[in-house]
């Protein structure tokens, strides 16, 4: 990379974030963030519950959605080929990408061919996943985020911490500060005397971005759905920035994960009832756009779709984890999760936080990195996510399955202290006399620490466990002793 000045605000890197247990500890210390998160998640999950309860056949809808997505996953080759044919016939250039780098390269080449030095972007999880903005920056193209929350994140040199509300960890005064100091460096500055009223902040964003929309020649989007039979793309949004990107520029490139297919137009009825109620807790979000290729005289005349794998076929290859690909990125699992509510999104070390991040990341990327081996444990297995998921992803089953895979991975790589301990545990459990002996030892320990709670200890394995938890001292009397004393005569 050259040493020239950057075109867009420099974000921190996900790679700098340590594995979950360590990152979580740091995030838990941020009192303001915890407060912001508690307020936001409580608000949004209450709204979701109200809107879901309004629909009489909510459970039936969830079942249908899960079935449709399973049908797509199990026959993905069939539907992708069908979608590709329909999109091509409608005038879309279809590209395929094995991984994020390949997708980024394709997008970069289209931009270079068009001779643009900037693009406007609709908030998209998939381009966060591939780190597209940084790739474009490296080849001299400025990528501007146009979703209000993404703008706050981008101008704040920050990382998104939520799928739906990327700036959920920030409050209005922090946002005012970001707008005041940064907007002027990259375009129309924030107005003098900007207050921290949400309406004023939104108006400042409108003015700042309007200039970029009006001159944009190329836009980049993700895609909520692609209808295989017609090749129709669907984008679900609120602010209208999506519509701006989808209709004003001459060129539109949509990067879409291969799992985002729906078989027919009619299948949209299921998902358009489920998605807004599950994500923002609205009956419907303000804007949905559906487009099927090029419409002469209306909107971009040069359309591209990049179909991205980037590990999705790894997820598909595991029948026990496959249901993860049903995800429609609504974020209901984040908003209900007691772990997410306390640590926020950054601790998960990828754009996908919360329960979905805990199962998606390790499956997309594999278990070779410590951060991915840690994620299946970033859960209490309380199961609240199972209950709210509109496509019925069995989160806890998959988390347990992945924990098993992590244990297998570790065993195969380095037989360890953990195995030694398990062997020891096996000996203890195999015979009542062994257990009595072990309990006597724990009683002695209990007498030594006398009811004090225990923090981190330099004990292999337990040490790691205790990093994120405090534990009650062992009891000074074993259950067997208690029984003998109180019920011994029975």
């Amino acid at each position, binding site marked *: 990379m050259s040493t020239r000045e950057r075109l867009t605000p420099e974000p921190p890197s996900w790679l700098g974030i340590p594995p979950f247990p360590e990152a979580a500890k740091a995030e838990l210390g941020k009192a303001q963030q915890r407060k*912001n998160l508690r*307020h*936001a998640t409580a608000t*949004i999950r209450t709204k979701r519950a109200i809107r879901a309860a309004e629909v009489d056949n909510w459970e039936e809808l969830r*079942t249908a959605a899960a*079935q*449709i997505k*399973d*049908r797509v996953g*199990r*026959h*993905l*080759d*069939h*539907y*992708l*080929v069908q979608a590709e044919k329909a999109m091509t016939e409608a005038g879309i250039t279809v590209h*395929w*990408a*094995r991984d994020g780098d390949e997708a980024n390269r394709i997008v970069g080449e289209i931009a270079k061919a068009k001779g643009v030095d900037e693009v406007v972007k609709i908030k998209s999880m998939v381009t966060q996943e591939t780190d597209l903005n940084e790739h474009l920056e490296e080849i001299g193209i400025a990528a501007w985020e146009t979703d*209000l929350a993404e703008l706050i994140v981008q101008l704040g040199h920050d990382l998104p911490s939520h799928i739906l*509300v990327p*700036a959920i960890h920030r*409050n*209005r005064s922090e946002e005012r500060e970001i707008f005041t100091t940064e907007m002027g460096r990259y375009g129309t500055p924030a107005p003098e005397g900007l207050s921290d009223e*949400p309406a004023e902040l939104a108006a400042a964003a409108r003015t700042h971005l*309007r200039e970029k*929309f*009006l001159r944009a020649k190329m836009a980049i989007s993700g895609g909520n759905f692609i209808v295989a039979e*017609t090749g129709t793309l669907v984008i679900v949004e*609120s*602010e*209208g*920035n999506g*519509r701006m990107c*989808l*209709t*004003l520029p001459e060129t539109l490139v949509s990067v879409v994960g*291969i799992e985002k297919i729906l*078989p027919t*137009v009619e299948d*949209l*009825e299921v998902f358009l*009832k489920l998605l807004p109620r599950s994500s923002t807790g609205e*009956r*419907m979000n*303000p*804007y*949905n*756009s*559906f*487009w*099927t290729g090029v*419409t002469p005289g*209306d*909107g971009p005349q040069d359309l591209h779709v990049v179909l991205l794998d980037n590990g999705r*076929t790894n997820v*598909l*290859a595991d*029948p026990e984890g496959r249901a993860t690909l049903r995800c429609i990125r609504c974020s209901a699992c984040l908003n209900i999760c007691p772990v997410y509510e306390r640590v926020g999104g950054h601790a998960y070390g990828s754009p996908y936080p919360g329960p979905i991040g805990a199962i998606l990341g390790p499956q997309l990327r594999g278990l070779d990195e410590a951060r991915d081996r840690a994620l299946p444990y970033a859960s209490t297995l309380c199961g609240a996510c199972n209950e709210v998921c509109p496509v019925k992803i069995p989160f806890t089953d998959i988390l347990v399955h992945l924990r098993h895979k992590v244990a297998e991975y570790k065993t195969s790589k380095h037989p360890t202290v953990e195995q030694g301990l398990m062997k020891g545990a096996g000996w203890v459990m195999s015979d009542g006399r062994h257990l009595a002996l072990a309990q006597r030892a724990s009683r002695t320990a209990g007498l030594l620490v006398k009811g004090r709670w225990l923090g981190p200890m330099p004990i292999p394995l337990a040490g790691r466990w205790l990093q994120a938890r405090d534990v009650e001292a062992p009891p000074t009397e074993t259950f067997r002793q208690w029984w003998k004393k109180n019920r011994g005569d029975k």
Partner: protein
Amino acid sequence: MSAREEVLRRIRRATKDVTEPDPALDVPVDWTYGRALDTPDVLADFVEKVEDYKATVVRVDEAGVGQAIVDALAELGAMSTVLPDGLPSQWDETVVDSGIAVHRDHPELSRAELNVIDAVVTTAAVGMADSGTIALDHGEGQGRRALTLLPDRHICVVRSDQVVSDVPEGIARLAPGIRSRRPVTWVSGGSATSDIELIRVEGVHGPRRLWVILVD
């Protein structure tokens, strides 16, 4: 091997446990498509739900539409409006006669020109009561997509026979248009964001005000 072949090969390998070739037989879907809701008064439900997004709804008879549009423009403080092709001539004439500055989209207005026009008046394709959603398929009277996006106020005329109870019936009505590759836009209230402390703010990038004229 091309990326296309490689990805398809990976998918086929990943799903080799799937032996039933027919997707519909392999995974049946327990759902009846296109069902209506059992709503006692569909129009009343539509009005209630649209108003819930802080949009304005007025109900008029056929003859009153032109005047209702002029009243809406005045109420919204619009000094100029763009009228797409295909609006009924009586409405068009009433607006022109009212003295407001009227723009036409031929030759095509530039983005900059559209950006400074105060309002747009359109018809619609479908209204969905349960979610308070209006669908445009950008046919006659609805204009290309940019027309209902850049001006700050959108006045939308919906006929009562276009209003259905719920999203599934709406999709059923829109499906032929989608299959013939019409773009479709769904509008549920004005542009809004909840990105700042989850407080709903009306009006970010799309029209800040939506004004619906429901024709009985």
